[in-house]
């Protein structure tokens, strides 16, 4: 990994993780570790059918079991719990019943039908199995084509069809010139390539499943909800609205979160059901999602099919792009709506200069689990078609794939650059990144190893893919235009305690991205105090300031980091004014350095944080009109998004007998602007790249024609395991964003975006020259064997 000069402060250094000590000792505290006296356990009965009418539900036997406290059906709860809200609410979107339990009809395997609350998980499952439901099965809609068939069964009869929402680009803006005509550009193009690409339905499968524990306090009553979420404030809003409980009586705590990857970004039915039963039974209630149900109850992602067409001029420069794509949304929008599908279109131009676009997206409903967010959020779905088609174009144009990309990458002098879909790209030097990747010693190793593998009689190939990643989500002013119903800013509060130590409370939620360490570094530098003088707290709506979007969309370092800086600066400024008062000096003459305040030019000893803080809290000797105390709030709303970017080069090694693919090496070049902690940045990339490898080669949830999912456990859902890891060479460039106070862009999602494209490009390179293009992920061994069986082109 590239060594850059060591910065003066803590920021930019690979400080070891603060969380390690508790994690390696087993002292982490996750939702399932939280227990309350008299707690009961909630279990959900889920539909075994993809599409069926509920004829009757008999809960008599379940209720009779010793230790069962409550059993309820959707019909019984319909008026008790209101409908969910939608974080992504695209113009014209249609919605389902929005209730935690369905009432008259089930629309996917796993849809909640009834609940049991009982003494423990064992008894609750006994009672769940004693509920008798009579279903009248209906024909299932399991593909997007079926859904769009005019004679298709309707999932939501009142919709009139199975289309949930549509979106299109370019978006004409009144007062601005008409967008260029992509149709004309393509018609006049020198070369046009087109292909249809599929990105399969996959699931984040965090190792910790979802879980909710709600304590009940008769005062009010008040509810304290521990839940495994990325967004505590959003959950509080959702629960309050659905249960009709004021937000100030609900406290949501996200304790240690055992992985989330976007899958825990939005509200789930159980987050309303658990507090509902805590209120109703006046006792604590818990829910722990079980692994089998997680495959039908937690939101999967991707699942798009795109027909993509790109035209080039005689110099192989892109003149226009047309895309028609379908999003298989599942049975109804989750709170995430068709957000991922929207992002695909909005970001489809990627890092390239695309003068004209004609993109249209259609989200359709099928009898599958509703789609949600997963690391990358629509961007891997855009990157795979784009980067594959560029490779296909390169061979058609007789150009090296690298050269084709170089000709079309947005040049550094063009930033800030507005794409044809209206996205403002803040900064970057894309061509430099490409060149650096090919200059890596690891690239020479890769070429040599490829030749060695081929010499040994096995197919091998190298593939490249470029990407940019939309991070630092996002400007609140823009959100309503793109269908998001909340604000995009973030908040940090900073307290200088009476002893002068610093305590931060962030509205973010750590879930593996080690914010605790990164934010401490940022704060220590800003306050000018030793790192161990800073503590950082998270994930509690009673102590952290409201933020809507919390941890998602790669926004912690830039957006929350900027709010932290604002909070710290306010605290330092207040201390400077107190110090000036105590030193009988003008605040403008008081310097702040190394955790002390001193009068500029005076040789005298300065005042320590402890001294200034003591005065702030004693309160009797403060500047006139100043309020006592030392707690400040910083809230930061970015002017614009920030786009990280990078390049992935992959080597594949194919077993010609079994069609199985290894990825022995990968090079990952990345730029996320200023890095708070390079160790964390690398960890995000390494972990993300392997998730991308899983998406490329092994992971998918396939539904059969009756709507049964093909994976309900790790036996069938093939996440990468240790022997499959590549030798990964990570390098960085640093192009700070002007739109965050610390110049940081996000990195959380970068790993997964282009890794599949690079691996599949490499795989295509390993196949005989005439082999049909690989257009779907994952690429399973049989597909590889088909490709290998191609007669070599002459």
């Amino acid at each position: 990994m590239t060594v850059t000069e060591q910065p003066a402060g803590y920021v930019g250094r690979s400080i070891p993780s603060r969380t390690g000590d508790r994690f390696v000792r087993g002292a982490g505290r996750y939702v399932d570790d939280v227990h309350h006296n008299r707690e009961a356990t909630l279990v959900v009965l889920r539909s075994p059918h993809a599409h069926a009418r509920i004829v009757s539900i008999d809960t008599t036997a379940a209720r009779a079991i010793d230790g069962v406290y409550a059993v309820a059906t959707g019909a019984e709860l319909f008026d008790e719990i209101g409908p969910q809200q939608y974080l992504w609410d695209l113009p014209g979107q249609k919605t389902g019943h929005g209730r935690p339990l369905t009432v008259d009809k089930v629309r996917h395997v796993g849809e909640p039908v009834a609940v049991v609350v009982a003494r423990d998980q064992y008894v609750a499952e006994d009672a769940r199995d004693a509920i008798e439901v009579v279903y009248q099965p209906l024909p299932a809609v399991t593909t997007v084509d079926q859904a769009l068939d005019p004679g298709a069964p309707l999932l939501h009869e009142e919709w009139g069809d199975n289309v949930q929402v549509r979106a299109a680009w370019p978006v004409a803006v009144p007062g601005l010139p008409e967008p260029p005509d992509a149709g004309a550009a393509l018609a006049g193009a020198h070369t046009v390539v087109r292909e249809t690409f599929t990105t399969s339905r996959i699931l984040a499968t965090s190792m910790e499943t979802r879980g909710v524990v709600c304590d009940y306090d008769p005062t009010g009553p008040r509810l304290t909800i521990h839940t495994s979420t990325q967004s505590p404030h959003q959950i509080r809003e959702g629960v309050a609205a659905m249960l009709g409980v004021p937000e100030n009586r609900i406290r949501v705590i996200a304790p240690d979160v055992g992985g989330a990857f976007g899958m825990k970004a939005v509200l789930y039915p159980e987050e309303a059901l658990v507090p509902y039963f805590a209120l109703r039974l006046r006792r604590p209630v818990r829910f722990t999602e079980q692994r089998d149900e997680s495959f039908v109850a937690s939101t999967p992602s991707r699942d798009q099919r795109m027909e993509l067409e790109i035209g080039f001029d005689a110099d192989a420069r892109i003149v226009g792009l047309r895309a028609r794509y379908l999003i298989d949304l599942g049975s109804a929008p989750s709170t995430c709506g068709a957000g991922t599908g929207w992002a695909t279109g909005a970001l489809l131009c990627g890092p390239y200069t695309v003068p004209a676009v004609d993109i249209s997206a259609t989200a359709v409903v099928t009898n599958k689990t509703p789609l949600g967010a997963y690391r990358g959020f629509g961007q891997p779905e855009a990157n795979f078609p784009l980067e594959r088609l560029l490779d296909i174009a390169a061979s058609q144009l007789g150009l090296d794939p690298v050269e084709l990309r170089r000709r079309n990458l947005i040049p550094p002098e063009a930033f800030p650059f507005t794409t044809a879909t209206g996205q403002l790209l803040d900064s970057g030097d894309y061509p430099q990144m490409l060149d650096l990747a090919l200059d890596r010693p690891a690239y020479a190793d890769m070429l040599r190893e490829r030749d060695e593998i081929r010499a040994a009689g096995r197919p091998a190939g190298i593939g490249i893919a470029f990407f940019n990643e939309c991070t630092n989500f996002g400007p609140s002013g823009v959100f309503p235009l793109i269908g998001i119903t909340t604000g995009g800013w973030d908040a940090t509060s900073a307290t200088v305690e009476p002893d002068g130590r610093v305590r931060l409370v962030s509205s973010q939620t750590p879930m593996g991205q080690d914010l605790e360490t990164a934010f401490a570094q940022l704060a220590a530098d800003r306050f000018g105090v030793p790192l161990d003088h800073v503590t950082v707290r998270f994930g509690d709506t009673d102590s952290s300031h409201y933020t809507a979007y919390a941890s998602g969309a790669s926004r912690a370092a830039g957006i929350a980091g900027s709010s932290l800086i604002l909070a710290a600066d306010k605290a330092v400024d207040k201390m400077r004014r107190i110090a000036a008062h105590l030193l009988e000096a003008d605040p403008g003459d008081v310097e702040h350095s190394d955790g002390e305040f001193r009068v500029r030019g005076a040789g005298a000893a300065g005042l320590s944080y402890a001294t200034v803080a003591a005065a702030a809290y004693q309160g009797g000797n403060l500047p006139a009109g100043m309020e006592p105390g030392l707690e400040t709030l910083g809230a930061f709303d970015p002017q614009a998004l920030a786009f990280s970017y990078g390049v992935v080069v992959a080597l594949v090694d194919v077993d010609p007998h079994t069609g199985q693919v290894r990825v022995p090496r990968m090079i990952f070049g990345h730029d996320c602007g200023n890095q708070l902690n390079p160790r964390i940045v690398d960890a995000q990339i390494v972990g993300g790249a392997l998730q991308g490898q899983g998406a490329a080669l092994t992971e998918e949830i396939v539904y059969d024609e009756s709507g049964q999912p093909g994976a309900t456990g790790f036996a069938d859902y093939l996440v990468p395991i240790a022997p499959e890891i590549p030798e990964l060479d990570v390098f960085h460039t640093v192009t700070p964003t002007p739109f965050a106070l610390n110049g940081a862009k996000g990195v959380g999602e970068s790993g997964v975006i282009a890794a599949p494209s690079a691996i599949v490009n490499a795989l295509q390179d390993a196949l005989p020259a005439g082999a049909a293009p690989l257009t779907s992920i994952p690429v399973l061994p049989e597909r590889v064997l088909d490709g290998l069986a191609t007669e070599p082109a002459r």
Partner: protein
Amino acid sequence: MTTTDLPPTAPARPTGERVLTMQVNGEPVAALAEPRTNLADFLRERAGRTGTHTSCHQGWCGACTVLVDGESARSCLTLAVQADRAEITTVEGVEDPDGTLSRFQQALIEHTGFQCGFCTPGFVVLGTEIIAEARAGARFDRAELLRRLSANICRCTGYAGIVDALGSALDHVTGEAGA
């Protein structure tokens, strides 16, 4: 009929509950459990050792790995009653009694062999067994280490930090043996 149940340390109750006793991380634990109670639930909810995590209840992920009489086991696939009178080591029992971390635990921190931390207890226990084997003379090449680590799933790290940490802890064992 001449059959006898396992002599229970307390009379079996109608629910089938019986008192199970174990040494958990060197401390005696006695608690009631039904025969169907799995060892993971017993450790987490009866013995208060929540460091052992469950994630799949099918033996695929290894998050719940503990040592039963010194040998690794899936505590989700072990009935608590099967571990009656056994010595159990959970992740909480890997460190020294004074709190000093094992070399593998330290190495996990040095190499960022974790992110969200949920699978970490399983890997700590898995690695602890491998290191014990190395102390007893076993040697592991990289391929064998990766095979051993394939017993458990991590979704965050891409395994790189875990592999490096275990390699470094094993190097130390080899160094000790060589010295």
